[in-house]
Structures are given as C-alpha cells and as structure tokens.
C-alpha cells in the first residue's frame, strides 16, 4: 500500500477501473452515433426474435401445422404460407438462427484471420509469403461460388455447419488487415523495447501487439459478421442453407419457389425482405463508422 503511494500512483481500485472502462465505452457510443444506431437496430431485431420465440407456439413453424395461404389475422398476425406454416412463428425462430450463423461465421473468420495475420506479419519469411499470396488468391475467387459448390455436396446442413463453411472462407480479409498492421507495429519503438527487456515472441504478440489492434479487430469482426450474414443468406435464398430449421433466407427461398409474388401473398415475402433490410442497414451503419478506425486512409476523407 505504502509502496504504491510512495511512487505517486493511485492504488488499484477495481470499482474505479470498471467505471473507467464503462465511461470509455459510453464515450465511444456517444461519439459514434451511427454505430450506436446500427447496434440498437440489430439488438431490437434480435430481441424481437428472442422474446417472440418465447411467446409463440413454435409448432406453428412446422409444415402443415396451420391452414395454408391465410392472409394476416388475429390468430396469425403475419398470415400463413403455402406450406401451412405460421409466418410469425417462422420469422421469430428464423431471426435468431440467421444472427447465429452470421456471428459464428464472423467469429471463426476473424479468429483464423487474426492468427494468420499476426503470425505472418510478425515472423515474415516464406510462411508469410505463402499465406499472403493464398489470401490474395482467395479474395479474387468469388466466395459464393465455392460456398455453393460445398453446400451443393453437403446437402444435410445445420446452422452450425453452415456457419463453419461460411466462416472457413471469411478469413482472408481480416488476415490481410491484421497482417499489415502487425508489420507496422513490430518496427515500433515499444516493441523493440519489449524485445530488449527480454519478453519472448508470445508475450510480445499477446501483450504488445494485440492490444494495439483492438480497433482493427472490432472493425474486422463487424465486417466479417456482415459478410457472413450476407453469404449465409445468399446460400439460404438458393435453398442451400440449414435444412432443419427456419431461417430468414430460406423463408424467401420458399416464397420464391412457390411463387408467392405471383399469387399476391405479400405477407409471405415482405417480412423476410424487411427483416433483411433492417439487418443490412444496421450492419452497414456499424461498418461505415468503424471504417475510420480500420482504414486510416479514409480519415481525411470522412472528416471533410
């Protein structure tokens, strides 16, 4: 106790540091209104799904559970589709599933990408050359083409397998961002000092470099989740997503397959489109406002 006061530093106070972090988070949200709006939009939608699932009779999402082709009514607020499913039940079950795929896929992509980016950027050498070229190649090949091929063969897919397939293809972009930042950071003075003071490579990467990448990691994660949801919904709309549970994209696939458009069954295709529009608006707002952290070249441009 006395030692710390002698050195003139304030004693460690867990309550205070929690308050500091909270204050920083609040300041960040206050400063980035657009980001906050995006987060709130997505949270509202997710809550709608999570609460709705509790309220609704989930059996209603099974095929043939309710009368076919009913317009919205008191019993079925969003009507019923041509397969005898209650659209409200389908939507509230589908929303969390679509979110789950996107977040899992984004997380997988960012974790793999960060690992590759950190190691390649820190150690350089032939492994770096290999992974960098590989990432560049993967960025050229349309991911949807590979995803379609994989999903066409792996016909029985669950939410988790879809997320895994999408996530395994989502690493190149995060890897490239993290690698270029690591390249710059490893030459910085504080890393050199840490090296001279005897920290090993693992400590330097985790204690010195990683904390300085927080903004890039956050931006990469939002970008990867966004791309993950986009890719997953694309697969679902093709009928290649999870087969065993309702998702937003698959709802659209059925609506399209059974020509809801031509039959005037707007309640079949409007809810999934509106939901997707909300999701992509939220993600767009988040990624636009994080861009200035992850893409320093934009700094001047967005200020003006």
């Amino acid at each position, binding site marked *: 106790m006395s030692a710390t006061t002698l050195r003139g530093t304030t004693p460690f106070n867990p309550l205070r540091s929690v308050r500091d972090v909270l204050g920083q988070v609040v300041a960040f949200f206050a400063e980035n209104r657009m980001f906050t709006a995006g987060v709130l939009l997505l949270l509202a939608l997710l809550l709608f799904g999570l609460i709705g699932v509790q309220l609704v009779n989930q059996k209603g999402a099974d095929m043939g559970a309710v009368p076919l082709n009913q317009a919205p009514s008191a019993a079925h607020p969003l009507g019923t589709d041509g397969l005898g499913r209650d659209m409200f039940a389908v939507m509230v079950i589908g929303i969390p599933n679509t979110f789950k795929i996107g977040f899992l896929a984004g997380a997988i992509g960012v974790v793999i990408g960060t690992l590759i980016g950190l190691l390649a950027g820190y150690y350089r050498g032939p492994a770096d050359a290999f992974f960098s070229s590989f990432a560049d190649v993967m960025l050229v090949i349309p991911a949807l083409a590979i995803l379609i091929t994989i999903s066409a063969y792996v016909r029985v897919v669950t939410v988790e397998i879809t997320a895994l397939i999408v996530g395994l293809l989502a690493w190149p972009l995060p890897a490239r961002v993290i690698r270029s930042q690591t390249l710059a950071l490893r030459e910085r003075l504080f890393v050199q000092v840490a090296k001279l003071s005897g920290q090993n490579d693992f400590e330097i990467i985790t204690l010195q470099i990683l904390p300085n990448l927080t903004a890039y990691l956050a931006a990469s994660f939002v970008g990867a989740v966004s791309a993950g949801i986009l890719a997953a919904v694309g697969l679902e709309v093709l009928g290649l997503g999870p087969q065993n549970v309702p998702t937003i994209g698959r709802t659209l696939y059925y609506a399209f397959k059974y020509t809801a458009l031509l039959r005037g069954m707007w309640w079949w295709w409007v809810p999934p489109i509106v939901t997707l529009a909300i999701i992509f608006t939220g993600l767009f707002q988040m990624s636009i406002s994080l861009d200035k952290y992850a893409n320093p070249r934009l700094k001047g*441009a967005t200020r003006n």
Partner: protein
Amino acid sequence: MRGLDLRYFLRRIGMFFLVVFVAASFNFMIPRLAPGNPIGAITSRMANASAGIENGQAMFEAYRQRFGLDDPLYVQYAKYMWRTAHLDFGESLAAYPAEVSDIIRPAIGWSIGLIGLSVLITFALGVTIGALLAWKGTPRMVRAVLPITMIGGVLPYYLLAMLLLYVFAFNTHMLPMSGAYDSGIPAQLTGPYIGSVARHAALPALSIILTSVGAWALTMRGLMVNTIGEDYMLLADAKGLPRSRILWWYSVRNAIPPQLTHLGIAMGYVVSGAILVEIVFSYPGLGYQLYQAIVNSDYTVIQGITLILAVSVGLCVLIIDLIYPRLDPRVTYVSENSN
C-alpha cells in the same frame, strides 16, 4: 512502358494462373472431402437408376471413368487438372450426354453482357456523383439530392431485384418479369430483337446499378477530397482555367485510377451478386444455369460454372492490373530490388 518492368507483368500473370489453379483444386477436393463420399453415393445411385434408362449403363460408366475412382488420388488429380486445362468439364449429369461446356457457353454471353454493362454504367454514375459531391462548385440543390443514390447500397443485390420485380413487372407490367428476350422474335440483330433484349435486361441491370453505385460515389468522393488540396489544383486555378476543365481533367482524372483497383477487388462481389440477380429474373446467364444445376444435382455443371466464374473474375483483375500503370504514371512498378 514507363515505370513498368517485366517482373511486374510476370507476377500479375503468375497470380492469375495461381487463382485458376487454386479454384480448380478446390473443385477437385470439395467432392472428395465432403462427408459420406458423395461421388460414391452418386455413382451407386446412378447405377441403380440406370437399370431402367436406355443408355443408362453407358452414362454410369462414363461418370465413373470421368472421376477415375479406381486410380490413386494423385493420378485422379493430375488427370483432372489436365482435362480442366483443356477446358474439358465433362458431360452434364442431368442432360447426359450433353457437354458441360456446350451448356455453359451460351450463358457466358448473357452474363458478360448484363454484368459488363451494369458495371460500366455504375462506374460512370458513381464517379460522376462522387465528383459532384466533393466539388465545391456543385449547386446546393444537386448536392442535397445526390446522397439519395446511396440508399440502395445497404441491400444485397437480389433483395432490390425482388422489389423492382414486384413494382415494375408484377404490379405495373411495365417491364418483363423473366428471361432475356421475347420468344416470338427471331434472334437476329433487328430492331425489335435488340429492343426486347434491352427491355429484359433493364430490371436486372437496374438492381445491380442501384445497389452498388452508392459505394462507388462514396469512395470517389474521398479520393476527390484528397486531390482538392494538391498544388496542381491551385496552379490550375491561378492559370485561370475554366472550372469544368479543372474538375474533370485535374481533379477527377487524378482520382480515378485508385477506383479501378477498387473495381478489381469488388469484381468477385459483383459476380456473386449478379448470380443471385440472374436467378431472381430467370435471366439465362451463368447464375441461372448454376441454380438449375443445383436444383438438378448436376454436379459437373456446378463445377464447370464455379470454375468459369473464378477464372473470369481473375481475368478481370489481371486486365485491370495490367492497364493500371498506363492510367496512373505516378505509380511506378519497378521492383524494389532493381535499383
């Protein structure tokens, strides 16, 4: 050529072949890594089914031979790569014995026409809007209206496509709902045929343009802002050049080259998006053929199309990379070691 050396060319061309090689390898590996050995499942299913079909046994044998399932893996791989290098994708499974390449070939033309035209229009529109947004001389009215073009950028291509389809084709019958031309008109370069093709392409093209023009305008605006602070702009102003000349030949001219690199990066995304747009409008390009192949479990066609997609995106990126030094002489591509 100024600021350009052989190494740069070779690297870019090497990169292209690497893209093709990796894409082809994926195509080889995916069916073999998939759980439950789908090739085996398909062949045995076909063997059962072929008992009732005329020529069924020949088809089954051809398929089995094509995958060379009795060879060791590296022989299968070498054979596969050899055939792919010769653009031999084998026979369609659903429409045996039609060649996959014969099925794909007509679709390529429609896709290139639709996507190529849409991308060119988007590029021109995005550059213009972005330039006007950043330019101080733009009337305030125009500047207030322009950001509206960015709204579509939030949605994936196919969602806007569905909405456009509903509003303009289903509700008001202003434009056709599906296909690439009216079936009654002979496919010759006559006025009615061209008009019919244009009418059918309008909505798919519009959905690609409206969803991507915002991003173009946004980056163009950023690039323009950078040029506005440059000394040559001040000089041009001091020389008394007309304002429009300064805008287009000094500011825009210098801001455009990085946009092309952006196009190279975005190409894969554009193609992915266009696949889904084609499906929505039943437009007979590669995307629609791909969808049909998925529905019919026509694996050879699926693989042929995905490979063609990867190759064409790689080719676009290569072309952009090769013409880029000509458009932006400020950038030198002499490799670091050579001086």
